[in-house]
């Protein structure tokens, strides 16, 4: 009897420990504290967030605002566990490409919510409302907008005697440039492994996304299959790009480009500044995605903030969200050159932050690149599709598997 009694006490003590373990570090410490959770990969990222936080604190003196950060990769793993344990921060950062897996955790934003936040979408770039929306429902407001560009290494192109690509160029121009720049152990182009990086050119060429607007997977649509096969053919047939070395090289194309092994690569506008000021010291340039018979469709991407469904005080959270996206905060992001702001009025400040020698090009290319953009359509299991396709791409680029087969088996597995 005694033993059982002591055992019960021990069990109760353990249970108490478990409970206290769960309740610490939560996002609901007290109702007047609003926690912001955002990714930050470096001290400069954190500093920039703190600067925006100051703006939010000034605008909401009655609220206590706290910041939580994690590096990009860990952020989403942590968000998964935070969502599961009810610890999601009231104001949580989100990216257009990741939203579909996390819609369950976010509050659906109504017009009234936006009004509480003091946000008028008309002040934002066209298509900005599509960035953090899924199947027509809005879950967040973006602070920056992005799309994919072709970056080139001007030094390599000059050495090969090839003209620099101009905004508005065609797929024929692209192929000719890539072919001409492939010599002396350098490649004209480097293929991508990330979803956005490898799909940008096929989407532009096909003029359509591999997913329909309602979230139906359309990987096997002939136009997309043709365009994707053309893309992998750049490695296997045209031989203007190197085969990828390993499925763990998730940033293959970008690394080949910065390593000066390839003259061109596709990457997002978010890396424009870091490419222009690259450590390797080569002269970087950029241009729009090439256009073909089907135009030059690009995706409008971006990151922003949403409100957690589990948030105890959504009105306060909305106010903080509004402050984080206020003109002051947007001006700060823009003038620091960190990313291209979603507020139209702040966008000129971004160009002003760019070194004068690059400014005209960046302004021309950015303006043109955002002309023909569409929000990204994703299926519910889109991250699974990406995880499945990525290691298969290695086999495709190495000629052991065809793009058509990979897309078909992905469609069969995930298209149901």
């Amino acid at each position, binding site marked *: 009897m*005694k*033993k059982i009694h*002591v055992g019960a*006490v*021990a*069990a109760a*003590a*353990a249970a108490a*420990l*478990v409970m206290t*373990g769960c309740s610490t570090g939560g996002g609901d410490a007290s109702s007047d504290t609003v926690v912001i959770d955002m990714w930050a990969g470096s001290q400069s990222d954190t500093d920039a967030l703190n600067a925006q936080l100051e703006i939010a604190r000034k605008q909401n003196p009655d609220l206590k605002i706290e910041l939580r950060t994690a590096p990009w990769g860990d952020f989403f*793993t942590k968000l*998964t*566990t935070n*969502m*599961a344990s009810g610890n999601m921060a009231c104001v949580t950062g989100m990216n257009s490409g990741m939203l579909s*897996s*996390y819609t*369950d*955790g976010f509050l659906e934003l109504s017009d009234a919510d936006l009004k509480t936040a003091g946000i008028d979408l008309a002040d934002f770039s066209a298509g900005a409302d599509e960035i953090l929306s899924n199947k027509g429902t809005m879950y967040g407001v973006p602070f920056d907008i992005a799309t994919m560009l072709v970056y080139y290494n001007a030094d390599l192109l000059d050495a090969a005697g090839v003209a620099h690509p101009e905004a508005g160029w065609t797929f024929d121009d692209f192929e000719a440039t890539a072919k001409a720049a492939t010599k002396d152990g350098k490649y004209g182009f480097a293929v991508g492994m990330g979803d956005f990086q490898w799909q940008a050119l096929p989407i532009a060429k096909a003029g359509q996304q591999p997913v329909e607007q309602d979230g139906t997977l359309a990987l096997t649509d002939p136009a997309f299959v043709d365009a994707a096969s053309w893309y992998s053919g750049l490695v296997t047939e045209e031989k203007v790009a*190197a*085969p*990828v*070395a*390993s*499925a*763990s*090289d*998730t940033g293959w194309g970008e690394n080949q480009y910065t390593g000066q*092994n390839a003259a061109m690569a596709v990457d997002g506008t978010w890396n424009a500044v870091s490419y222009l000021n690259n450590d390797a010291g080569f002269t970087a340039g950029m241009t729009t995605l090439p256009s073909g018979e089907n135009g030059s469709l690009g995706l409008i991407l971006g990151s922003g903030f949403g409100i957690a469904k589990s948030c105890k005080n959504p009105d306060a959270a909305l106010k903080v969200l509004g402050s984080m996206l206020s003109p002051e905060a947007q001006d700060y992001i823009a003038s620091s050159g960190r990313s291209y702001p979603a507020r139209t009025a702040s966008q000129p400040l971004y160009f002003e932050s760019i070194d004068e020698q690059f400014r005209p090009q960046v302004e021309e290319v950015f303006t043109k690149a955002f002309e023909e953009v569409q929000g990204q359509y994703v299926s519910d*299991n889109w*991250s*699974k599709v990406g*995880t499945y396709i*990525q*290691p*298969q791409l*290695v*086999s495709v*680029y*190495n000629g*052991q*598997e065809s793009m058509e087969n990979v897309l078909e088996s992905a469609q069969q*597995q995930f298209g149901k």
Partner: protein
Amino acid sequence: MSTTTYTPRRGTLARTESRQALGFVSPALAGLALFTIVPVVLSIVMGFFNWPTFGDKEFVGFDNYVRLFTQSPDFWPALRNTFVFALLYVPISVILSLLLALSLSSRIRGRGALRVLFFIPVVTPMVANVLVWKMLLQPQGLFNGLAQSWFGVQLPNFLADPQWAMIMVVVMSVWQGLGYNMLIFSAALEQLPESVVEAARIDGAKGFRMIWSVMLPMISPSIFFASIMTMITSLQVFAQPQLLTGGGPGNATQPLVQFIYNQGFKFQELGLAAAAAWILFAIIIILTALQFRAQKKWVHYEH
């Protein structure tokens, strides 16, 4: 209970003592419960649920297990990859490190330095090791560069070829894990009883006979320990394929633990991941039990 047969005085004392003892161990018990028992029990429970990270959990019985074995396109390949890895890795690693320990057991000059050298890969972070190996193995890497400039031969794209990729994961892992087993064997060889070795030597044993009939039986407990631990870690392999090949090309090098990781943290199917983890646990337990049974035939304990 047995305490009732004692005299009342001793019974009271024993009871008091056991109560006090429990008081003293309760912090440890609480820790054990919190960090070991609760998660283990939770993972068993999870295995029987459709358990998304967010949203409604639903009891599905053995459905997760059935799905793994009959529907999941990656589960069988992952199981196969894990076994292929273990079958290649365990014997190569144990035999090579044993040879290394034997060759470093004689009193040659600089053996201390050599031991340190072979042990370095064990203590350097895996990420750094993998980075170096990637630089060696990729098409623009050292091996292909040397092969082309010296022999004019184009080496295969090691990490992107379905057959080569697994071999390279094994080679890299053997290199990385060699020093640990070598250290265990070296320690055992250092402690061989001088009298037995001397007796064998007087009887004329030397060279291969000495190693095979005298030394190996005497260090067989260490060999047993090393092979069990190596087998367990090889069945749990994750970091090497994750970092070196990303499980690819396709799923050619995706081991079971990476499959579990993907299900749980990329696809947010915690139930499926828990079920797969318990399958891995069962495999490890069964193989370890078999090894313990087999050891009676070949492991010699002195005492």
